[in-house]
């Protein structure tokens, strides 16, 4: 077994601020993902990384950057926080491309 840890659990930022969310997994999974969930909605893919040195844009990448620092960690940066960025950001990992995904507990972002 393993776990996915996301930090921080809650993030409060100012409009226009650059904000970074972190994700760590100890499954030794190759592939990692960042999703955004708006209240009452399904998840939408922001960025994913198939292997350690890879980075791929998802459907919602504009306004975000991502970095796969090492196999176990994947960071997401909100480049300029907007009022409508209030959402939960969920990190996931899978053993490889095309495999079952497992999710972290999420980071809840509020922009003042």
């Amino acid at each position, binding site marked *: 077994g393993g776990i996915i840890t996301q930090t921080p659990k809650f993030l409060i930022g100012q409009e226009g601020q650059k904000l970074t969310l972190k994700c760590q997994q100890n499954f030794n999974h190759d*592939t990692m993902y960042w999703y955004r969930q708006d209240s009452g*909605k*399904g998840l939408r893919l922001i960025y994913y990384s*198939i292997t350690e040195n890879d980075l791929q844009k998802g459907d919602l990448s504009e306004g975000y950057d991502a970095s796969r620092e090492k196999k176990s960690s994947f960071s997401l940066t909100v480049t300029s926080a907007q009022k409508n960025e209030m959402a939960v950001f969920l990190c996931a990992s899978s053993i490889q491309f*095309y495999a079952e995904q497992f999710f972290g*507990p999420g980071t809840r972002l509020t922009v003042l």
Partner: protein
Amino acid sequence: GDKVKQSPSALSLQEGTNSALRCNFSIAATTVQWFLQNPRGSLINLFYLVPGTKENGRLKSAFDSKESYSTLHIRDAQLEDSGTYFCAAEEGNAGAKLTFGGGTRLTVRP
């Protein structure tokens, strides 16, 4: 339109009864995952399916890729089954990206 459409959007069940949730796909889904999001927001993996069926306790899921749908059957619903159920489909020619449905909010009442 929605690539993954879940129905119903909300459901209220009496404890001990049975029900079925459904996902219809307008994409060429190759695999399907079902999750339960609990009130704290955590996503719990329920099933990972290639075409076929799987069963786990009171839950059973089926995925028919030719007819482009998946179902999740809940038998003998319990209070702890309450939460939001999401299906997500992997599209064959779109890499490892999951496309999520909008969810079914389930309330099990005593």
